[in-house]
C-alpha cells in the first residue's frame, strides 16, 4: 500500500513539474531582456541567453531541467545579480528561506492545535451552551474578515499601541509570536469547527453510551473512545492545512518583512526568474505530497481498521 501511495506521489510530482515548466514558459517576457536592462546590446542579451541555456529547444531545456532537479543542482537564480553576474545558486537561496517559512508553519501548527482541540472538545461537551455559542460565533466572525486585515489589527494592537512585540523581522522568539498568532487565526477557526463537529457526533453514538454505562471514568471515555475516533478527520484537516500554511504565509511574510519562501516566490514571478520558480514549485509540491503520504500513514497508526485492510 505504501509503495502504491509513493508511486502515485511520484507521478503527481512529475505532472506538476511538466505543468509548471509549461506555464512558466507560456508567460510572455524574456528574462534575459528583463534583467540585462533596457540599455543592454543585442549581443549581451544573446550571451545571457546562451549562458543560461535559453537558446536551446524547449524539450531539451526540459530534460536538462529534470536531470538537474534529480541531482539537486537546480541552477543559478537570475534575480540576485552581483557584479553583473548571476551567481547565487537557487538551492542555497531556497535553503536559506525555507527554514524561516517552515519554522513559522510549524509554530502555527503547534499553537493552533494547542488552542483549537481543547476549544473544540469543550464546545462539543456542552453543545448549545453559552461557551459553545460564543466560540462558534466568534469563529464565524473572525473568518469572515480578510486574513491580512486581522493581521493588521493585531499588529496595530500589540505592536503599535501596546508596544509589547516588534512589528517585523525574523530571528528572536518575540519576533515569531505575532506572525504565528496572525497565521493561526484561520487555522484555529477551522480546526475548532471540525473538532467540535466530530467529537460532538461521536459523543452521541451508541458505543460512547455503552462506555459510559460500563461505568468508565469520563476522562477515559473522552480520551480513549471519543478523541481517538475523532482523530482521523482532524488529522486530515491538519495535513491539508499544513501544506496550505506554507503558501498562506505569503501575506504574513509580506506584512512582517519576513523574507521567507512566499516572498521569494512572488519576487521570482515578477522578474521571470525561471530557475527559482522551477525549483520552488517542485520543492513545495514535494512537501505537499509528502504531507499527504504522512497523513495516510497516520491513518493506519490511528485506526487499526485502515492498517489491516
Amino acid at each position, binding site marked *: 500500500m505504501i509503495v502504491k501511495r509513493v508511486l*502515485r506521489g511520484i*507521478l*503527481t*510530482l512529475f*505532472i*506538476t513539474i511538466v*505543468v*509548471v515548466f509549461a*506555464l*512558466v514558459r*507560456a*508567460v*510572455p*517576457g524574456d528574462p534575459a531582456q528583463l534583467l540585462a536592462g533596457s540599455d543592454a546590446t543585442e549581443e549581451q542579451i544573446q550571451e545571457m541567453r546562451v549562458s543560461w541555456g535559453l537558446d536551446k529547444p524547449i524539450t531539451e531545456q526540459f530534460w536538462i531541467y529534470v536531470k538537474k532537479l534529480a541531482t539537486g543542482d537546480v541552477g543559478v537564480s537570475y534575480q540576485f545579480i552581483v557584479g553583473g553576474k548571476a551567481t547565487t545558486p537557487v538551492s542555497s537561496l531556497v535553503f536559506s528561506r525555507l527554514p524561516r517559512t517552515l519554522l513559522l508553519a510549524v509554530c502555527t501548527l503547534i499553537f493552533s492545535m494547542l488552542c483549537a482541540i481543547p476549544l473544540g472538545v469543550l464546545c462539543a461537551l456542552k453543545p448549545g451552551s453559552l461557551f459553545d455559542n460564543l466560540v462558534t460565533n466568534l469563529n*464565524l*466572525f473572525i473568518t*469572515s*474578515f*480578510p*486574513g*491580512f*486585515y486581522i493581521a*493588521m489589527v493585531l*499588529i*496595530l494592537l500589540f505592536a*503599535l499601541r501596546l508596544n509589547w512585540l516588534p512589528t517585523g523581522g525574523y530571528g528572536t522568539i518575540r519576533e515569531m509570536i505575532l506572525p504565528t498568532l496572525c497565521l493561526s487565526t484561520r487555522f484555529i477557526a477551522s480546526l475548532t469547527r471540525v473538532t467540535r463537529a466530530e467529537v460532538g457526533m461521536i459523543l452521541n453514538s451508541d458505543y460512547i453510551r455503552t462506555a459510559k454505562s460500563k461505568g468508565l471514568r469520563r476522562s477515559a471515555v473522552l480520551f480513549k473512545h471519543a478523541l481517538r475516533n475523532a482523530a482521523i478527520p482532524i488529522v486530515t484537516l491538519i495535513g491539508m492545512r499544513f*501544506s496550505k500554511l*506554507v*503558501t498562506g504565509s*505569503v*501575506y504574513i511574510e*509580506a506584512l512582517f518583512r519576513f523574507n521567507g519562501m512566499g516572498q521569494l*516566490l*512572488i519576487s521570482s*514571478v515578477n522578474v521571470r526568474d525561471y530557475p527559482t*520558480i522551477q525549483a520552488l*514549485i517542485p520543492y*513545495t*509540491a514535494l512537501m*505537499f*505530497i509528502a504531507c*499527504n503520504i504522512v497523513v495516510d500513514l497516520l491513518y493506519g497508526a490511528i485506526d487499526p481498521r485502515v492498517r489491516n485492510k
Partner: protein
Amino acid sequence: MMSKAKKIAWFRRRGMKKLIPGGLLVGIIVLGTLLSLIWTPYNPNAADLRAIGVGPLGTDSAGCFHVLGTDQLGRDMLSRVMVGGQLSLLIAILAVFCSALIGTVLGVASAYYEGWFDHFMGMIVEVQHSIPMLLIIVLVLTLFGSSIWVLAGGLAISEWFSIFRQTRAKTLVQKKQDYTLAAKVLGASNARIIFAHLLPNVLPTTIVFATLLIGTVILAEAGLSFLGLGVSRPYATWGRMVADGQANMNTAWWISTIPAIWIAGFVIGINLLGDGIRQVLRME
C-alpha cells in the same frame, strides 16, 4: 391575504432564522452597490483636500457630512464602498459561475461514467492540490495581464474543485438510488438519466456550495489585492481599499476597517444564506 397564523408559520419555517438576517445583510450590500451605478453621496474618485482623514460621522472643513468618514485623499468612504462592490461582486459572481459550471459538468460526468475519466479527474485534483494555488493565479495574471476576466478566471481555476468534489460525491450516491436504477431498467438513455433524473437532485447541493463559494472568492480577491495582484487602480474593490489603508492603520483606522467590515458583513450574510437554504431544503 395571509392569515396571521400562516404569517407566523412562514417566519418560523426551518432555516428562516438564518435566511432572513442573511438575506437582509446581502440584500443591503448588493442594493448599495446597485444604487452606486446611478447615485452615490459624493464622487467616489474625487480627492478633496478639505476633507482628508475625516472620521466616521464627521464633518469636513467645507461643512459636508460624511457618515463613514473619508480616506487619506479625502474621498468619501460610503461612496467608495458602494462603488467598490461593483467590481468585487462582478468578479466573485463570474468566478463562482465558472467554478460551478466546470465543477458540475466534470463532477457529474466523473461520477456517472467512472472508469478512466474518474481516475484522470482524481489525478488532476491531486496535482492541483500539490501546486500552490497562489502561484497558478499569479502566473495566469502575468500571462494575460490583470483584468477582471482574468482575475475571475484565475479564481475559478483555483476554486472549481470544491464544487467538483461535492457534485461528484452527491452524484455517486444518487446513481445508486432505486429511481436511477429504475430509469436505467426502463431503457432511459444516459443523457436522459443525467439531465432528467440526476441533475435535479444534484443541483441543490451545487447551488448551496456555490453560494458559500461567493464568500470564499471575495476573501481570495481581497488577499490578491493586498499582494498587489488584484485589478489595477483607480478601480476600487473592497479588498484593494482594505490594503490601501494599511499605511494609515495607526492614525486613521477606519480607512481599512470600513471596507473590511463590508467584506465581513457580506461574507457572514452569504454564509447565513447558504446555511438557510440548506435547512429549507433539508440537506443536513
